[in-house]
């Protein structure tokens, strides 16, 4: 046997990858039941559930000093003359949040500055409770307030699940990780740190759970509109995230709001719950011949949505079988789809098929109900992802 030259790689693959861990639904229920009970007990003891502690930032870091200086210089160049004053200086953050609740249309860019790279992470349009998000590699996400669906650059649906806004969350709550929420009274009382002719600038310390990697957060708000126009999140390592909002001239993309029809599945079959494995013939996906699926361990999530363990093994054109992915099962919810990937049964990489050919199988399974209680339709959308993708 060959000595593993790269020990770290060997630990990751095959050692860690080959540790198969199959958790069953009963174990999940046991643990979650006890954890939820513990949470309820703790809530009784401490009913006042506090929000993040926001305090005024003491600017110690030279990076932050530079960043703040840069922000002020930029504001001056834009013609924002900081004047200060008792009236505008007292516009509380809660007023801004209340104003965002009135918004029907938002256009947003999200950029990441990483070293010398300035990366567009996504662009999103939100209009009348509907959202379109254009992400990396031309992926598109459509959210109609009930369901979100993501399609890859080839128009293949890779994700289908409940809306971002399920549970009554607003656009701003979702895209600020809760910072732009009216539920934190302490945050709501914060007043601007700088006041100009056109802008108010609010500066927040990161919450305690973010303070390890985030230095500070600046939010620029239009003085008349009281709507956020820019969020800048400075990281401790010098990188930053930039989110830009606008609310006028709704130049929505042609895709708004016309989600493509999800292409037909490459294969589907009725599968009996806790029954035998079923072989599904794959069509329209070059290189893939069959998928062998088994459905078991039905349980219910907190929203009473049926959830299953799905086993999938692919057989490629040349007859080789993939590994079972992920170790023995995928937890899938009824009528929800997600993207998964699978490679050869053994080995370190997607090249380790018996014939040495690269095969990276991507697939998106979907379980649908039938009129029989113990029988479901399993749809498989699948494709081989090219090596240089």
């Amino acid at each position, binding site marked *: *046997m060959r*000595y*593993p030259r790269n*020990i*770290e790689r*060997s*630990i*990751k693959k*095959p*050692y*860690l990858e*080959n*540790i*198969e*861990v*199959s*958790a*069953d639904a*009963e*174990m*999940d229920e*046991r*643990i*979650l039941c*006890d*954890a*939820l009970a*513990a*949470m309820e*007990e*703790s*809530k009784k003891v*401490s009913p*006042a*559930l*506090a*929000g*993040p502690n926001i305090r005024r930032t003491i600017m110690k870091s030279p990076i932050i000093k530079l960043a703040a200086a840069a922000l002020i210089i930029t504001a001056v160049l834009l013609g924002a003359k900081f004047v200060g004053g008792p009236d505008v200086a007292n516009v509380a953050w809660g007023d801004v949040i209340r104003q965002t609740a009135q918004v029907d249309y938002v256009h947003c860019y999200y950029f990441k500055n990483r070293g010398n790279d300035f990366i567009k992470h996504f662009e999103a349009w939100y209009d009348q409770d509907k959202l379109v998000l254009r992400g990396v590699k031309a992926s598109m996400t459509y959210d109609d307030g009930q369901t979100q669906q993501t399609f890859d650059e080839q128009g293949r649906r890779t994700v289908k699940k409940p809306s971002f806004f399920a*549970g009554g*969350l607003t656009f701003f*709550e*979702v*895209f600020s*990780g*809760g910072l732009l*929420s009216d*539920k934190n009274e302490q945050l709501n009382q914060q007043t601007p740190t700088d006041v100009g002719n056109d802008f108010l600038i609010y500066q927040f310390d990161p*919450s*305690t*759970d*973010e*303070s*390890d*990697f985030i230095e500070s957060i600046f939010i620029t708000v239009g003085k008349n509109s009281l709507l956020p126009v820019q969020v800048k999140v400075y990281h401790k390592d010098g990188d930053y995230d930039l989110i830009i909002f606008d609310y006028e001239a709704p130049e929505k993309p042609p895709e708004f709001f016309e989600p493509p029809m999800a292409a037909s599945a490459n294969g589907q079959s009725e599968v009996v719950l806790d029954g035998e494995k079923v072989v599904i013939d794959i069509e329209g996906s070059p290189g893939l011949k069959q998928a062998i699926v088994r459905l078991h361990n039905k349980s219910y*999530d*907190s*929203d009473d949505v049926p959830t299953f363990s799905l086993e999938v093994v692919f057989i490629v054109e040349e007859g080789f079988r993939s590994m079972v992915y*992920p170790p023995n099962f995928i*937890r899938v919810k009824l009528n929800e789809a997600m993207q998964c990937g699978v490679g050869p049964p*053994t080995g370190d990489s997607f090249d380790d098929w018996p014939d040495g050919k690269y095969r990276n199988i991507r697939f998106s399974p979907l379980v649908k109900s039938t009129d029989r209680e113990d029988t479901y339709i399993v749809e498989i959308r699948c494709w081989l992802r090219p090596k240089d993708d």
Partner: protein
Amino acid sequence: MLEDKLLIYKFNRGDGDALRRIYEKYRNDLLKVAAALLNDRSGVEDVLHDVFVSFAQGVGDFQLRGSLKGYLSICIANRARDKNRATQRQRTVGLGNAGPIRSDISGPAHLAVRSELSEQLGHAMAQLPYEQREIIILHLQSKMRFRQIAKSKGVSANTIRSRYRYGLNKLRSILDGELKR
């Protein structure tokens, strides 16, 4: 990360669905960490259970430093260390108190290690001191930076790097010895 922030925000307001989502999101990764660190793998469910119950008790004022996955992985590693110690103590009790030896692959979570190399790596990993094995698993499986691990352990990043390096060197020498035999 955005989702985690939102989940923690909701969890701290007593949202059970957020707790459930956190569990479902990280369960498999954490089971793997536990399986890689426990001397007796039948204890993985106990470790995961204890960590989540303890985590749930922190509702309302839970404060996270760094990533949620990293935090939970550290909790798993700490519990696994305690469990290993407890198991070690049980194994050294008098013969009169000795119970039946439990299978390594029994229990609600079924675990198996495939392939010759991964088996050898498994044996070699089991021979490492816990503090070295722990750093290797947290770094390679949980993808935690040395700085993050160091902060959670209250030691310097250089100490963590050294433990990692010593661990890898020892693995190499164990594997080398086995392969030469």
